[in-house]
């Protein structure tokens, strides 16, 4: 109850600050990135952290979501909610199509397949004139409001945390712990791996829709491997298998990126440094697999 009140208060406070203009454009942009990054990190963490399957193509699913939502709202004149649903469904479908054949196999096939997927989707988008080819789509209406961002972030996090705490979540974690043992326990490991992967992809698609309808323009380049890598850094930094860690790391990386906006090269060097330092001094990430307990998230 207390958490709900705190969240509501936070929402209203920010809304108020936006309305009266205390939060200027610059802060709003960063706030938006922060929310989108949280959704991306929490959903990738479900795949990489909790299920233990290495996915390197999160930006690809984001692209699928971004483009399908924009096709819905800009080209077909549908309301935003339809665009969001289309984003979630198409990204989930893409996840299903990639997940089913690769997750049957043990090993690193998923990493290879998702890496390939991320690149292929970009090339495909570049070659479809209907959606602008390499130039992308410009002039997307700004439908992503603070309400959408806030609700989207909370709902994504809640859904994933509840999934993890359900009996499905137990099965998912047991696969990461020891795939053979969980098979021996009678867990259909492929099914649960696909489930986690599809849910993760779905929320990446959702994040893509929110992104497209805030930043006015989307290009295939926006969703390159570098974006996937960004999200991966957040997950590793936060601690594989800690949702709290993913959220904290997403916030931290967003702030860092904003601070270093004028020095993009420095940012990549810093990323590499942070990763090396984390690997040496805290290989389990900031949070390990621990969580701050927030009852509303239980």
């Amino acid at each position: 109850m207390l958490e709900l009140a705190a969240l509501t208060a936070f929402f209203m406070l920010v809304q108020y600050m936006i309305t009266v203009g205390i939060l200027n454009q610059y802060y709003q942009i960063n706030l938006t990135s922060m929310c989108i990054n949280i959704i991306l990190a929490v959903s990738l963490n479900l795949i990489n952290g909790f299920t233990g399957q290495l996915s390197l193509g999160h930006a690809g699913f984001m692209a699928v979501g971004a483009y399908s939502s924009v096709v819905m709202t800009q080209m077909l004149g549908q309301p935003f909610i339809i665009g969001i649903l289309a984003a979630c469904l198409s990204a989930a479908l893409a996840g299903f199509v990639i997940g089913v054949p690769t997750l049957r196999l043990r090993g690193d096939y998923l990493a290879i397949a998702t890496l390939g997927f991320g690149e292929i989707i970009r090339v495909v988008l570049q070659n479809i004139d209907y959606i602008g080819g390499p130039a992308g789509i410009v002039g997307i209406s700004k439908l992503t409001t603070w309400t959408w961002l806030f609700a989207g972030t909370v709902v994504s996090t809640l859904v994933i945390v509840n999934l993890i705490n359900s009996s499905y979540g137990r099965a998912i974690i047991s696969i990461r712990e020891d795939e053979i043992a969980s098979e021996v326990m009678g867990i259909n490991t492929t099914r649960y791996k696909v489930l986690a992967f599809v849910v993760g992809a779905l929320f990446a698609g959702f994040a893509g829709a929110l992104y497209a309808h805030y930043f006015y323009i989307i290009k295939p380049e926006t969703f390159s491997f570098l974006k996937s890598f960004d999200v991966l850094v957040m997950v590793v930094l936060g601690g594989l298998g800690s949702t709290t860690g993913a959220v904290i790391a997403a916030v931290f990386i967003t702030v860092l990126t904003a601070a270093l906006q004028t020095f993009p090269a420095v940012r990549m060097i810093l990323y590499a440094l942070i990763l090396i330092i984390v690997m040496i001094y805290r290989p389990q990430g900031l949070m390990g697999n621990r969580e701050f307990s927030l009852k509303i998230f239980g």
Partner: protein
Amino acid sequence: MLEVKDIDVYYGAIHALKKLSITIEKGKIVTLIGANGAGKTTTLKTISGLIRPRSGSITFKNVDITRTAPEKIVAMGISQVPEGRRVFSAMTVLENLEMGAYLRRDKKEVEMDMEKVFTRFPRLKERRKQLAGTLSGGEQQMLAIGRALMAQPELLLMDEPSMGLAPLLVKEIFEIIQDINSQGTTILLVEQNAHMALSIADNAYVMETGEIVLQGTAKELMNSEEVKRAYLGG
């Protein structure tokens, strides 16, 4: 109860099991012994449905399970204590035991079985909130056995439960196996410790490079010159 008939299993080009046949009667302890790499683990994995035989058949309680999914096989009453224990190390003892009962929906009975496991292994009860990865080797083996029992198996497959344990603990584990069996669970026991295994088993099979080379009652094999020479150090 279990009838493995002429199964052939391959890993790529490696012919791991060659026309292997094993019969297990209800209520018995059957042991499968053999040197490293003979194919014992492969046999258990094939029975559990984790590996598919290229030919041959497996029937359990008169039902053909040769192509049945692993989770269905567990639900039918075959569970396994895998080689090397394989406990879920980041989960607590209690959570590990709950995983063993993952497919069961009868909450009350699951709780009763949990109590039974705790009665059998008081040390697990004391440590039920402890992370499984921090248990000693012997405790982890007990947990692996407890976890397999939580599936309410009629047939329990055990893959080298004495591996890496001190002699006193080995003795304890074998007593536990006998006790589980006396309470009605049929057991297929894979062991390197041939002497101990033969001393508690009813029937035994000896494997070499994917084939059964000897079989009989445990007593017969214990007195067989070949077994004495190759496995009992005599």
